[in-house]
């Protein structure tokens, strides 16, 4: 087992180890395995060592660098880092250096964490396998013939490979939880608004949330507490400080009401792998054995999540990605007129999946189609929120598999976008409802590959979600 963030921070804070030594160790692991895995778009070794020396200097002067002192962290490459290229794994942003840090980047740095690199993703976070990267796919550390999931595949793989004990990803429809499941790590999508989106290059603004990857639930909780809280730079960020979740980890699940979502347990949504369903039932049984009341519950509208999502997300994306026009930054392909330059730039700069979603969204927002598509999808979204709210009247958390499949082989699903979209069918509802959800590794399925179980909670229900997640982790090991 690799060092956890908690153990690294404890040893660095106490002076037992230097942050430099920690970073050097991780850089060695990266040097050994990165060429095969391609988790990173860029490893920021020099800056990391420099930051480590600063942490060490503070420790030696009796200061406390913070709860993540000396902890290496990998950042999804759609999170802005001042002066460091932020590409979204797209040719259209190649070479662009943001003049600012995302709020989460500032927060982890203030907590003493050290950015070790920017991780690969599906271009603009659109995908479920990290194969839609302009810079080539990331491979799953557990089986390099397979994908790590996506879109935050690089961040998931980085943690699974021991490149960093924690990383940050973004989750619009499952982009943290699904790769966490496929790589056998913990992945958390916070309540919408719990973590600032300032500095996250937008895919679908009403769905995007930044969240942690970690090898343990406790590390994920620690990182969650560091990155959460109100940010005046994000109008959709919720008031108040970050929710305290770490204190709930050891509370157990005695008396908690856990609902197993029947639509997601093979009842209605088809194509979920049998072994994954079995592990999810194991997880439910384990919680029941630990004293939770476990029952099946129906959340009927959850079934419509996928269709609503594939209208709302592309609509917002078509608008969010309009700014990549070659005028101000990133790629420019010259042409005779401004309009032709826009077209040439976007044609050359965007990959096929991004183009597909821009076209979908542009079409769905067009005059005459708005009500039938975007309007209707928003109504479905309201229905989903309502059905989940009804379920949470009787349950503290809901349980389901995270992903219908274990890690699949590269190229297995690239030829059929719809099959690829189905990867998100179990994770999307939480994004539409704005609720928190996390994936916790729970045993293995086909080919001995890891299975993730999803714990969902009502808005701001992170504490009970982590509480159940920690219980699952204890029963799984």
């Amino acid at each position: 087992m690799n060092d956890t963030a908690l153990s690294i921070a404890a040893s660095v804070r106490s002076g037992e180890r230097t942050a430099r030594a920690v970073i050097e160790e991780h850089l060695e692991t990266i040097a050994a395995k990165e060429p095969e895995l391609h988790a990173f778009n860029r490893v920021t070794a020099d800056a990391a060592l420099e930051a480590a020396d600063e942490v060490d200097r503070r420790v030696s002067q009796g200061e406390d660098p913070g709860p993540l002192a000396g902890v290496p962290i990998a950042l999804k490459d759609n999170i802005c880092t001042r002066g460091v290229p932020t590409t979204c794994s797209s040719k259209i942003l190649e070479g662009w250096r943001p003049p600012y840090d995302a709020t989460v980047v500032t927060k982890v740095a203030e907590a003493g964490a050290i950015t070790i690199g920017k991780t690969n993703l599906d271009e603009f976070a659109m995908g479920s396998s990290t194969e839609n990267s302009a810079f080539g796919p990331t491979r799953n550390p557990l089986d390099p013939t397979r994908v790590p999931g996506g879109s935050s595949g690089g961040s998931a793989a980085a943690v699974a490979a021991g490149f960093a004990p924690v990383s940050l990803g973004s989750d619009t429809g499952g982009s943290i939880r699904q790769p966490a499941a496929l790589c056998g790590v913990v992945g958390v999508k916070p309540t919408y608004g719990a973590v600032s989106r300032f500095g996250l290059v937008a895919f679908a603004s009403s769905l995007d949330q930044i969240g942690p990857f970690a090898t343990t639930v406790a590390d994920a909780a620690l990182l969650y507490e560091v990155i959460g809280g109100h940010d005046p730079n994000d109008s959709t960020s919720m008031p108040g400080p970050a929710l305290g979740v770490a204190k709930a980890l050891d509370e157990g699940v005695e008396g908690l009401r856990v609902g197993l979502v029947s639509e997601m347990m093979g009842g209605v949504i088809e194509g979920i792998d049998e072994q994954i369903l079995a592990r999810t039932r194991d997880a439910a049984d384990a919680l029941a054995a630990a004293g939770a009341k476990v029952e099946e519950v129906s959340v009927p509208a959850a079934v419509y999540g996928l269709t609503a999502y594939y209208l709302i997300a592309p609509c917002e994306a078509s608008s969010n990605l309009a700014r990549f026009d070659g005028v101000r930054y990133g790629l420019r392909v010259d042409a005779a007129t401004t309009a032709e330059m826009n077209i040439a730039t976007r044609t050359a700069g965007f990959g096929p999946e991004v183009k597909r979603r821009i076209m979908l969204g542009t079409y769905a927002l067009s005059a005459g189609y708005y009500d039938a598509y975007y309007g209707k999808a928003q109504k479905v979204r309201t229905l989903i929120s309502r059905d989940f709210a009804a379920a949470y009247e009787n349950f503290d958390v809901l349980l389901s598999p995270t992903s219908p499949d274990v890690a699949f082989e590269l190229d297995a699903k690239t030829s059929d976008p719809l099959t690829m979209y189905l990867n998100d069918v179990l994770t999307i509802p939480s994004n539409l409802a704005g609720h928190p959800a996390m994936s916790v590794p729970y045993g293995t399925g086909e080919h001995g590959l890891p299975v993730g179980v999803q714990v969902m909670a009502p808005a701001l229900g992170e504490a009970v979600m982590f509480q159940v997640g920690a219980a699952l982790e204890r029963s799984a090991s």
Partner: protein
Amino acid sequence: MTTTDEMAPGWEMVVGLEVHAELATETKLFSAAPNQFGSEPNTNIDAVSLGLPGSLPVLNEMAVELAIRVGLALNCRVQSSVFARKNYFYPDMPKDFQISQYDKPINEDGWLELPDGTRLGIERAHIEEDTGKSTHIGGGGRVHDAGHSLVDYNRAGIPLVEIVGRPDISSAEQAKAYASELRAILVTIGASDGKMEEGSLRVDANISVRKPGDPLGTRCEVKNVNSLRSLGRAIDYEAARQIDILESGGTIRQETRHWDEEDGRTQTLRVKEEADDYRYFPEPDLVPVDPDEAWIEEIRAALAPLPSARRRALADAAGVAPAEAAITVERDLDELALAAIAEGADAGRVLTHIENNLAVDGAISLDAASFATLVRMETAGELTATQTKQVLSELVSAGGDPRTIASARGFEAMDSGELETLVDRIIADNAETWADYLGGDAKKLGFFVGQVMKATSGQADGKVVNRLFAQRASTA
């Protein structure tokens, strides 16, 4: 081409104005970059102004307050509103969408009142962000044929309120009165500096013509009108153009037209073959703006008195029609006028002096008590109109007491005995001319009055002098 200022007989025009006013905030609508005119290009910018990836808009509360002031001043319903994205590609629009308000604007259904009492409808007054400014270099100097283009993003993100008027306007004069009144309102309530020449107030006119009783005709939108005078000219030109086309059997094409100030003509800018599709949808990066009643009432209570109310107040005090108080209010001198009238000065003379003799810088600092004293001296016959004007000018430029100024200038009321002696002497000195006058050459009177004025250095009261000569003539 019909180019008369009058409407061609048998036709009427229907005009609605869309006014964009930059709100007088310190910073931009969604970021802390300064809202300032005339800076070096691309110096008042930040990540949000440039729409950099990862940047997010944060709403400027002052902009909302100013927009609410506009809504209240225009008698609108102020309501919960939602920002929406208006999507289209243009290089001076950093995000390639404009954050505006669409189906839920902050202000709806209002009106404004012209000095003559006419009320013209306002459909809505919503908040939106301004775009940057493009300069097209080389080629034809337009976006589609330029060699290259430069973009200044200083203006991008400056808060605007777009005031959409109903098509209630029926003449160029009325359109000018509407725009002028709207500008006065915006300036009065501190919402905008209203400078058309700096582009902080931009007026677009939708113009159509029809025969009375017919349904509305096809309209054209005229842009690039940079002064009230141009607005009037552009509307008259455009209405005449449309009438000419219709009278010669043609049809009007719906299009956006550009007013060319030098040529005095409008020209096609772009043809609207179909409705623009801006793919509006609610802006997900912002939450709805839901001003509570208490805040709205607080803003209402603090609102400066509007021009229409000020005209009525002054008109009531002066005993004239509100339209006659318009210029005084427009010059922001109504408080002075009211105070002077309250001090017992003749209202008619007060308004006359303000309209004719106080169109100068510093007039606003004139002390009402001194102004009233001066007007009383005039009406008491102690000073002539000319003398009054001179004292007034000194009061404005240097201040002081009107009596002291008048005596320092030797403006003692001339003894009428003294004046009669002078009149008789001048008649005696110019006996031949006097005989001509008596013989029927009425123009010669001017000569005699002039002689008196010359001898008194203009201090004699013209009315009295005329009367004296008339008396001499009738007794000759």
